[in-house]
């Protein structure tokens, strides 16, 4: 049997692990709340923009804000954007996401842009080439997605693969066409009560420039929202991992304490036996 002093060393290190997992669990939970609030705020902002956009635009074609771009230069391929974790903490869900994306991937019809280092590693391991890699933004506010928007504008269409937050215990993977993502968000906005045109409004520099800018802005928000939702799922995944580790640390701590008490008791029993044996021998003499 191990000595109680040796077991105490294990108890101390398990206690540290127990405290650390508790702290990480708290941080992940706090981040989840923050991101949820941000997503809500951003939705209000988006609704107001969408309302304005639907009051101005003529026709139903969402043109990705590229009226000024040369239509000939648009690449006739579908762009795949995959959003994964920066590190390998949410490993399983990233693998599921990459595997799912590759099922429909055809190198002649699709180009891939990866957001998150872990996704880039997973694709390289499978020998799949990607066009560009962007680091997953470490901050949760004012995410600069301009370089991604520029890439999106160059392609005929775009599909985003990302992780979604279902609940603290459940995260899933999802794919969405960016055009559908923008229109989906606009669905909840109040229906416009009036039409904005050059008779009722003054436009500067022009109505076309404003519509173009609004389309880019809404894409900007939609991409930021998808990144935020991915991060939310990753934080939830970490929260879950920390909760499991915390519970395991608590169980280990309890087992170790029990083993240490038994070891202490065994030593005491041993000493008691020695004393009794000694007394017996002394009484015979």
């Amino acid at each position, binding site marked *: 049997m191990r000595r109680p002093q040796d077991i105490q060393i294990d108890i101390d290190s398990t206690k540290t692990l127990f405290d650390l997992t508790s702290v990480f669990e708290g941080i992940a939970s706090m981040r989840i709340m923050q991101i949820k609030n941000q997503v809500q*705020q*951003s939705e209000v*902002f988006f609704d107001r923009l969408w309302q304005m956009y639907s009051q101005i635009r003529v026709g139903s074609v969402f043109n990705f804000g590229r009226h000024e771009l040369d239509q000939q230069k648009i690449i006739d391929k579908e762009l795949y954007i995959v959003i994964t974790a920066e590190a390998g903490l949410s490993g399983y869900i990233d693998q599921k996401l990459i595997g799912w994306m590759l099922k429909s991937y055809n190198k002649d019809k699709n180009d891939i842009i990866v957001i998150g280092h872990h996704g880039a590693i997973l694709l390289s391991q499978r020998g799949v080439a990607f066009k560009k890699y962007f680091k997953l933004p470490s901050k949760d506010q004012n995410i600069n997605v301009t370089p991604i928007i520029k890439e999106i504008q160059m392609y005929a269409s775009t599909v985003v693969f990302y992780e979604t937050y279902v609940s603290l215990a459940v995260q899933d993977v999802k794919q969405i066409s960016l055009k559908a993502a923008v229109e989906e968000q606009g669905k909840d906005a109040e229906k416009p009560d009036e039409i904005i045109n050059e008779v009722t*409004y*003054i436009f500067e*520099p022009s109505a076309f420039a404003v519509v173009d*800018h609004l389309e880019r*802005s809404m894409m900007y928000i939609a991409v*930021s929202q998808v990144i935020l939702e991915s991060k939310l799922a990753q934080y939830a995944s970490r929260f879950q991992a920390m909760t499991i580790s915390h519970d395991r640390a608590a169980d280990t701590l309890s087992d170790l304490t029990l083993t240490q008490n038994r070891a202490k008791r065994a030593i005491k029993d041993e000493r008691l036996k020695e004393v009794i044996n000694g007394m017996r021998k002394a009484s015979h003499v």
Partner: protein
Amino acid sequence: MQLNSSNNDQEQSKEVSNSKTKLFHLKIYAPFNVYFDGEVKSVSAVNSTGPFDVLANHHNFLTLLNPCDITIRKDGDKEVPIIIKISKGIMQIKKNDVVVFLDV
């Protein structure tokens, strides 16, 4: 007494002039932040045509803003104007309600 009464008159006339100053509602916000939300006397910004000011009862207006300082003057001449530095934005003026969308 006379001095007091003239002071009172001045205050009353000031109150009358303040009540005559027309105010309008201004909201300046970005997807994750509200920078200003309240009643103001005027707001100034810069677009591709140049600097411009907005007062109450402005015509409906939709413009893209250039990088500039948005200057907000609330009611009362002695108040120091509020200045918000922006990189880009969209301003919509609709029936005395001005909304500035930033960071988009």
